[in-house]
């Protein structure tokens, strides 16, 4: 069964910036308990505390710093792909293995129905308990995971099924086996093939969008990100350790790299932002799943109206626009060259 986070509130696993929220929550629970115990009525006190709690939660989550966003995206109780599969995918049939080397549990692929629509799901899974985390390698896929994804996507193409990809990974696994079996080639091949796959592809970053490991299943017609997720070229810690020379400056790196959904949308890297329930998906996984389902159904309906050739053409145009640069005059170029040591 789905082991989703606490559905109606807030107990445990508070993030460092939620101290005040946690305090309020504790007071409310204490009052509620003592109401039951003593039979006295604290209704108005509780009501007032609740109102404060809700407004504090709202202002906090509306103004998350990039680093706080990363912490929410990594929250231990944040719903993962398997939770969403349990909540919104009907009749799920998992497909295993890359037919080359192994079955990588960091990427789960399978057939299912969302809102009645038949589709292929390709989903990165981090693992909830220790056993599952180890089986899933904490969501860090090996090349065989990317090759399984490609194999099943080609199956989807063959039978005209749309693809929904859920991204949630810190990155592809940096290990010896991963390099030996060509993780770079696997990611590159997936991007190339996904760019011309003749079936609609919807991609949603549900938690962490970690670099090439995310993009390896991340090329599609429409790219969305959940409200408190992030997508980055390198982990904030990795960036900080290179540029700031210490991983402790991760918050600064997160800020500098513009990794939040709002920034990503303004840079045209994502097309849509899927709203999360008040205080993040982990506070109400069912509502988060509903929002996700609505987005997927609406987007697939939208995409299926277009002829497939038109679809891949538009997909190319979408990705062709990625990047920000300027054009310089020959004059300015000459200045650069003139300044250079000969």
């Amino acid at each position, binding site marked *: 069964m789905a082991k989703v986070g606490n559905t109606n509130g807030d107990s445990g696993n508070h993030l460092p910036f939620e101290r005040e929220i946690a305090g309020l929550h504790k007071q409310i629970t204490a009052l509620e308990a003592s109401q039951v115990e003593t039979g006295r009525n604290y209704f108005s006190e509780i009501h007032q505390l609740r109102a404060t709690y809700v407004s504090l939660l709202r202002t906090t989550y509306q103004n998350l710093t990039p680093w706080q966003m990363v912490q929410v995206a990594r929250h231990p109780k944040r719903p993962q792909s398997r939770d969403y599969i349990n909540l919104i995918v009907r009749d799920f049939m998992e497909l295993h293995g890359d037919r080359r080397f192994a079955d990588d549990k960091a990427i789960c692929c399978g057939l299912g129905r969302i809102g009645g629509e038949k589709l292929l799901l390709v989903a990165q899974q981090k693992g909830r308990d220790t056993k599952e985390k180890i089986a899933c390698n904490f969501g860090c896929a090996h090349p065989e995971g990317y090759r399984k994804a490609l194999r099943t996507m080609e199956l989807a193409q063959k039978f005209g099924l749309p693809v929904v990809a859920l991204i949630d990974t810190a990155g*592809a*696994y*940096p*290990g*010896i086996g*991963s*390099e*030996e*079996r*060509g*993780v*770079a*080639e696997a*990611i*590159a*091949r997936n*991007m*190339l093939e996904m*760019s*011309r796959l003749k079936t609609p592809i919807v991609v949603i970053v549900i938690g962490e*969008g970690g670099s*090439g490991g995310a*993009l*390896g299943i991340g090329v599609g017609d429409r790219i969305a990100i959940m409200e408190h997720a992030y*997508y*980055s*070229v*390198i982990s904030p810690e*990795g*960036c900080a350790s*290179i*540029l*700031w020379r210490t991983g402790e400056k991760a918050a*600064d*790196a997160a800020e*500098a*790299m*513009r*990794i939040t959904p709002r920034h990503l949308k303004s*840079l045209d*890297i994502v097309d849509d932002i899927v709203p999360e329930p008040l205080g993040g998906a982990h506070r109400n996984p069912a509502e988060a799943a509903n929002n996700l389902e609505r987005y997927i159904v609406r987007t697939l309906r939208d995409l299926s109206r277009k002829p497939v050739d038109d679809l891949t053409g538009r*997909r*190319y145009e979408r*990705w*062709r626009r*990625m*990047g*920000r*640069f*300027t*054009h310089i*005059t*020959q004059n*300015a*170029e000459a200045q*650069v*060259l003139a*300044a*250079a*040591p000969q």
Partner: protein
Amino acid sequence: MTPGNGAIMAKAQGEQPLGPFNANAFEGPSIRKKREVPDGLWMRCPECESMLYRKVVVENLDICPECSCHFRVNARRRIAQLADPDSFEELFADVAPCDPLDFKWLGQSYADRLRKEQVKTGNTEAVLTGIGYIKGRRAAFGVMDGDFLMGSMGSVLGEKITLLIERATQDKLPLVIVCMSGGARMHEGALSLMQMAKTSAALARFDDAGGLFISLLTDPTTGGTTASFAMLGDVIIAEPGALIGFAGQRVIANTIKAELPEGFQRAEFLLEHGFIDMIVPRKDLRSEIARLIDYTQKN
């Protein structure tokens, strides 16, 4: 120590490790640290430590005459070595970088860094693109420049490579890309990451049109560059000893908490594991590329 060598040492020590994804691909842990030694009459081979007369090394295509270590070559020199004399016509040189994120760190700004790199290298970005001839065969060339922010891939590099691929598709030209890169450029955030997908998508169309793409991997080719166009060649050639990988060696060593095997992520390692077609010494690159072009063209 000769005065020339002293200047070299000072430069090597004063040089700060720069930014991108796999900075360690450039810094080590390889024993071959600095290869490009711009000044001075003499240089020391980082591999065999022989003292070499610089002019001899240059005439020898930047290969150590003693141990055949292939030194790193900047983009302009690479084109001079690879293309027929004066045949290279540069394209898309007007595409220039900006600082889209207003990226700042430790009192430095990306905009300033870009200017410094431009002045240092005389190039506007970390890749030169254009059309030239190789032993009389016309081809589209993209050559990455490791001197410019470690050949890291940002928006401009991705755009110029994509424009080149599109030109090669349109003009039905063989495409040769010389890779040398520390990975995706952090200073442009996810915009850099998306260049991996953009260039790969352009290669899908080139492939559909029946184009020949020869990817030449030189030391080092790492990170997002490896995980996109570098590994998508119809034929993939590497120079001897080149470091080629996705994750940085230090990152892997820290993750697995163990020493990395000898020769890990070197060209020979990739050949053995089936990820490149061949290792070609620099002296034979022109003839081997020309041969490949002949094999794949009609008649």
